[in-house]
């Protein structure tokens, strides 16, 4: 058993952490949010060229570091610490994950582009009626034509490619008959309505109308098991992001509790505040443990159950730590002025992303507790 990072992983973490501390402070981030594009292309270029983090989970043959899920975890936690807007999750973890899984010519063509920062991928799987169910797909691919509507596709507005699930056969919620496609984001017949999300990234409603899709664009037919695996990997990466977000929420709140004085003493002197901070601390520690556990089980038979356990625990932690961080800050916690409120927003959205606590508890039940 080993929970330590290798030397390379430690270096990856430290260089990213240093870069973000120097360039991605709260004010710079908020400036990007106010500009309303949902990301900063210059940061992405720096990720590719200066830091080289976009190559972390790819094989050396593709120009990568030869890493995998642990590298994604390392990177995502640091991105969470700075509530980074840029699309590492959708491009590197999800898009890159899909390409690594299918391999072949398309992977050879596009992975170097991801590493160079030129290829950016948005994940268009969830549908308006589908809630968190990846099998609930009414978008269709028939006779080479794609039609349908995908909901809240994060970073579609800055993507070069869309990773799309579409039904080639069966009924709307069948688990078979779902294909996974990778198509150019500017293909004829694709329209978008772009908007900002509550934590400052951009997202879109994406509509397909008779989009021509050739065989070369089909990554996998009957792809639901693959899609679930990709989303499990993404969910664990999201849990790692959450760990970064929650650690900062806890640290800032602890700091504030030591400084803020009421009734002639620091509010951290009140036992109720102390115990609350201890409970938050315990939630963060368990979130970290579960994220590591699930990351290390991604290649095992227990993958799905482990990921759902982790996400259920992290989702609860996100709610508890986020809400109490605001509570202990008092009035200043609910303003736009302090970073803590923005970390709280990100923590809150993570709760439902890739499935709520309830969704993952029932998935865990279905996988392991058959009566």
């Amino acid at each position, binding site marked *: 058993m080993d929970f330590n990072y290798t030397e390379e992983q430690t270096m990856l973490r430290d260089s990213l952490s240093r870069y973000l501390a120097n360039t991605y402070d709260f004010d710079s981030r908020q400036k990007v949010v106010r500009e*309303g594009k949902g990301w900063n292309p210059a940061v992405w270029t720096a990720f590719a060229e200066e830091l080289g983090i976009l190559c972390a989970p790819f094989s050396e043959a593709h120009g990568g570091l030869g890493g995998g899920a642990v590298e994604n975890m390392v990177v995502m936690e640091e991105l969470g610490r700075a509530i980074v807007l840029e699309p590492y999750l959708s491009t590197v973890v999800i898009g890159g994950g899909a390409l690594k899984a299918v391999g072949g010519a398309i992977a050879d063509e596009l992975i170097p582009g991801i590493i160079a920062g030129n290829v950016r991928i948005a994940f268009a799987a*969830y549908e*308006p*009626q*589908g*809630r*968190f*169910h990846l099998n*609930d797909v009414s978008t269709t691919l028939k006779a080479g034509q794609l039609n349908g509507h995908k*909901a*809240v596709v*994060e970073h579609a507005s800055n993507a070069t490619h869309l990773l799309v699930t579409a039904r080639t056969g069966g009924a709307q*919620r069948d688990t078979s008959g779902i294909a996974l496609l990778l198509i150019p984001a500017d293909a004829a017949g694709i329209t978008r*309505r*772009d*908007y*900002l*999300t*509550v*934590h400052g990234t951009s*997202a879109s*409603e994406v509509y397909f109308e008779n989009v021509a899709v050739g065989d070369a664009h089909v990554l996998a037919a009957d792809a639901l098991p693959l899609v679930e695996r990709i989303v499990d990997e993404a969910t664990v990466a999201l849990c790692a992001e959450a760990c970064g977000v929650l650690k900062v929420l806890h640290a800032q709140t602890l700091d504030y509790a030591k400084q803020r*004085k*009421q*009734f*002639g003493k620091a509010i951290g002197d*009140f036992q*109720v*505040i102390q115990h609350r901070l201890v409970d938050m601390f315990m939630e963060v520690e368990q979130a970290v443990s579960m994220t590591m556990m699930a990351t290390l089980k991604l290649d095992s038979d227990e993958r799905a159950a482990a990921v759902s356990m982790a996400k259920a625990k992290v989702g609860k932690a996100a*709610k508890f730590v986020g*809400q109490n961080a*605001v*509570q202990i800050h*008092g*009035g200043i*916690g*609910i*303003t*736009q*002025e302090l970073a803590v*409120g923005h970390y*709280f*927003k990100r923590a*809150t*959205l993570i709760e*439902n*992303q890739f499935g*709520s606590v*309830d969704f993952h*508890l*029932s998935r865990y039940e279905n996988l392991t507790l058959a009566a």
Partner: protein
Amino acid sequence: MDLNFSAADVAFREEVRAFIRDSYPAWLHEKIDEGEEMAKEDFLAWHKILHQKGWIAPAWPVEYGGTGWTATQRYIWSEETARADCVRLMPFGLSMVGPVIYTFGTPEQKAKFLPRILSGEDWWCQGYSEPGSGSDLASLRTRAERFTGEDGKEYYRVNGQKTWTTMAQHADWGFFLVRTDPTAKMQEGISFLLIDMKTPGITVRPIITLGGEHEVNEVWLEDVIVPVENRVFHENKGWTCAKFLLAHERTGIAGVAASKRNVERIKQVARQTQDGADSLLANPFFKRKVAELEVDLAALEYTELRTLAGESAGKGPGPESSLLKIKGTEIQQRLTELALEAAGTYGAPYFRSMGEGDNSFAVGPDSARRVAPVYFNMRKTSIYGGSNEIQRNIIAKMVLGL
């Protein structure tokens, strides 16, 4: 003991329903449904209709403009206005400074201010909190020095900073706690002043909250001159008024009727939301959470009714009202959690309001619009009006004797 309404109460309820149906402005419903930001006149539209009808201040004594309703009738009134989604009335005049003035004010103060509170002519704000004095309100430092003016009259010169002042951007008048005797121990040297917000030396600056709202403000006071006749009650005895008002503020804060309405709304949304092959309300996890909320809400409701019965038997709102504040706000917050959860993926898009900005087109179901900002915004309820930690301290000390 009897849980049933009398025939007279039932008749009253019908009268209230008919009145709301006939008089509540339809455009106001539309504006709220669209999630549009409310202007001052929007808040006041319903206020003015109620004033005309004579129903604007059911809780006030009849001699000052109250309705003379029984506690049950007042309960029916709040139920029915919530059920019909009527816009919330601003509490600062009607529920806060109004009762202070008719309880502690001079005849001149009553004559000058009460009618204008009832008519909605004056919009009030509450200047209590300061950057260094939130939970520990009695440590407040805004200073009021007394002097005799060139006209021979007595004045205060006020200097200091207030913060979190809700809706001060609209306010005509504010009621302020200020320190008139810096040598006295904390609670002793405080006075309660009514200040015209147009007085020179007052600066109001917005604070933007997490959902993007402009709801609270900083209020700076620099050499603000206030006539002594605008002080309510004795000099250095303002804390008496402040405490009286805080207890009033806490009872209203339970919000039972509005929460009941919101439970219904969430059930309806969950019924219409698809979750796999079924509706979200058929999801056993979600359904259980709704059931638990309904149980807790009933417990709050019957606790409030017991408290009200005690009040109409002559006991003023006591420290028990802290219980209503804690449980009421926890329920309000849980409702926003459920609404956000019900929205699923569509909780993420950010809407300022329809008709402006990037997100001026509909994304996802109407019910999902603004659920996240509302969730963020409602975190305030366990912080303001005395935080829920402070309320627990009050119960520990005043009720349990710890």
